[in-house]
């Protein structure tokens, strides 16, 4: 049902579901920290906070599933199922898409271990659950590297908001149980701050800079012949008015 030119429904779906998945993942991390910090009371019993965390996380996985499925189904960018799960394979922006595959693998691991929590035992579950902290920045970088809407103001606001929320969550998490394991906490805080700083430094020269689509590894056949700051599928392959024919 796709045409080779112009945006298809899948393309829009994959972009939107990806953004929603990131937002949900952000909320999940934040509520997860509320969980660990034992936030709760009569109005918000802890089993409710915990339930929200689990539900939001599951929703994030669902949206991730839609994101992957539609990305694979869409014929504009050559993304196969393999590319979606095996990092750094494929021809479409292999590095940045690979981050997405990596984040997916981590989230799958976190999800499966949470489902099998009883069998795994608490300690093993806890160790793997911390992978969620690694999953989030990788997912964000994937979005920044592959996202077609990165330069749009509304998405910049969303991304900035998510980063702030996660930074706040990490800071709050580092405080819970202070001062046990001080070095570990300071390392985590340092890593979070360093990540944020690196983002600020990288973005202008990276996704927000010129010719990002080409620099990011978009196959030449998909790039528009005329140079432009960012490339959307609408500007693809010699406009023979195919836009009208797509879904």
């Amino acid at each position, binding site marked *: 049902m796709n045409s080779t030119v112009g945006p298809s429904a899948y393309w829009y779906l994959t972009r939107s579901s990806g953004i929603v998945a990131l937002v949900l993942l952000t909320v999940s991390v934040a509520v997860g920290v509320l*969980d660990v910090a034992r936030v709760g009371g009569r109005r918000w*019993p*802890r089993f409710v906070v915990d339930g929200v965390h689990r539900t939001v996380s599951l929703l994030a996985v669902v949206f991730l599933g839609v994101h992957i499925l539609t990305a694979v189904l869409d014929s504009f960018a050559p993304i196969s199922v393999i590319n979606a799960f095996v990092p750094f394979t494929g021809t479409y922006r292999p590095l940045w898409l690979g981050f997405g595959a990596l984040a997916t693998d981590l989230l799958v691991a976190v999800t499966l271990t949470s489902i099998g929590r*009883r069998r795994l035992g*608490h300690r093993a579950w806890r160790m793997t659950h911390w992978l969620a902290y690694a999953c989030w920045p990788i997912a964000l970088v994937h979005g920044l590297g592959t996202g077609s809407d990165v330069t749009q103001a509304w998405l910049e606001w969303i991304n900035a908001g998510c980063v702030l929320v996660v930074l706040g969550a990490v800071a709050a998490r580092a405080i819970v149980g202070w001062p046990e394991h001080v070095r570990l906490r300071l390392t985590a805080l340092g890593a979070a701050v360093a990540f944020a700083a690196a983002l600020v430094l990288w973005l202008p020269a990276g996704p927000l800079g010129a010719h990002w689509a080409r620099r990011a590894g978009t196959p030449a056949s998909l790039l528009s012949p005329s140079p432009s700051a960012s490339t959307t599928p609408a500007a693809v392959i010699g406009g023979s008015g195919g836009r009208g024919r797509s879904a």
Partner: protein
Amino acid sequence: MRIRVNPITCEAHGLCAEMLPERVTLDEWGYPIIDGRPVPRELEGLARRAADSCPTLALLLDLPKTRRGA
């Protein structure tokens, strides 16, 4: 079915008392006091959820041994 707690793994999160106050109350330090009486059928689902909700998996269910104990 009876409820039991592993006192070493328990970290006084208190979700069990929220989920199943009929069998679990918290002492002044936040740790569960378990009522060891059997759980009636209508509360079994809640008991399972309570055990599942424990962040450290400290709340345990003792099921009647049919062939091999749980």
